[in-house]
């Protein structure tokens, strides 16, 4: 990522987090995603892409492996174009936390910042070019006394495939 683009991305993420610091409106999203810089990938190789998310203060979301079947896990779905494949997704471990509404029960949650890593592969025959990877992050948020319906936010970044 070039320096100006990185600065702009950082400013955008910072300003977006200010929205999370505000009193949440009933329709707002409780999670935002930081911009991902342009990813470069050689044909025939693989690379890891880190996607950074920030959860609004006072909120938490279930981890990818919540402790009960009835809880809704955080799930990232990525749709790669034909020239790419999503080989793996690595979620962080959830943090075991107890909340005022159930002080004796620990839940596996994400709060604050968390990252998900995607391993992308480009076949050797992949044509050089820039390809969008799109998807969505589905999560279900709660605060200290209430829970909010499941939501999804869009996830998108650009991958540039270069020939060997």
């Amino acid at each position: 990522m070039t320096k100006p683009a990185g600065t702009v991305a950082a400013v955008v993420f910072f300003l977006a987090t200010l929205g999370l610091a505000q009193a949440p409106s009933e329709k707002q999203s409780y999670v935002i995603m930081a911009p991902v810089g342009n990813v470069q990938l050689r044909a025939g190789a693989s690379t890891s892409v880190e996607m950074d998310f920030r959860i609004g203060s006072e909120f938490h979301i279930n981890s990818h492996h919540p402790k009960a079947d009835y809880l809704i896990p955080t799930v990232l779905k990525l749709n790669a174009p034909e020239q790419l494949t999503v080989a793996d997704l690595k979620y962080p471990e959830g943090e075991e936390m107890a909340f005022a509404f159930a002080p004796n029960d620990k839940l596996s949650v994400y709060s604050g910042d968390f990252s998900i890593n995607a391993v992308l592969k480009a076949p050797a025959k992949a044509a050089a070019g820039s390809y969008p990877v799109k998807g969505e992050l589905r999560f279900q948020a709660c605060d200290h006394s209430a829970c909010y319906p499941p939501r999804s936010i869009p996830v998108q970044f650009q991958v540039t495939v270069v020939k060997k």
Partner: protein
Amino acid sequence: MKRNALVFVVLVGAIIGMLAAGKYLDRTRKHGPLKMVGNVKGVQAPDFDLPTLDGRRVKLSDFRGKAVLLNFWATWCSPCQIEMPWFVELQKQYGKDGLVVLGVAMDDSEPSKIAEFAHEMGVNYPVLLGTDQVSDDFGDVQFLPTTFYIDRDGVIVDKAAGLFSRGEIENNIKKILASSRNSGAPQTSRASVGNTLAPPPKDAP
């Protein structure tokens, strides 16, 4: 250089202003005896016709003359699970006085899964399958649990968004049980119920 400094100062000022406004709004959201979302206190509760988990259909108006605790919940809502055993106990305790607890499940899950969950929680009151329409009718229920306390005349006496203590729930139940049965009263008199609860009439059930 001076221009950059000015931009920096303006940016910092704007950020501080936004954070201060957010903090103020957040305080107003968190405090207060009950979170009132929308002006529903004293309003006639909208009627609905919803299916139950066992295939019956239930209208809110079926319970006119009863005090109704209408609880919106979902299986994925951990705070909701804290209240449910209280509702079970309170239904047992105050059912003879005219309390009816109704759960409205806002899940997208299969009814069988909701039924299984309710069974595990020992729920002894009807669970209805909620719809977006009912949520909208009740002022767009955005977070769970949300509970409406509806008096014997079908008027919303209070609305609690989020988890509250058993004591607060019981106090609200006592309020709606104390309301007189006055079906057919004009809307204007019903609208005052939220602020001036009438003592229970001698012949109240």
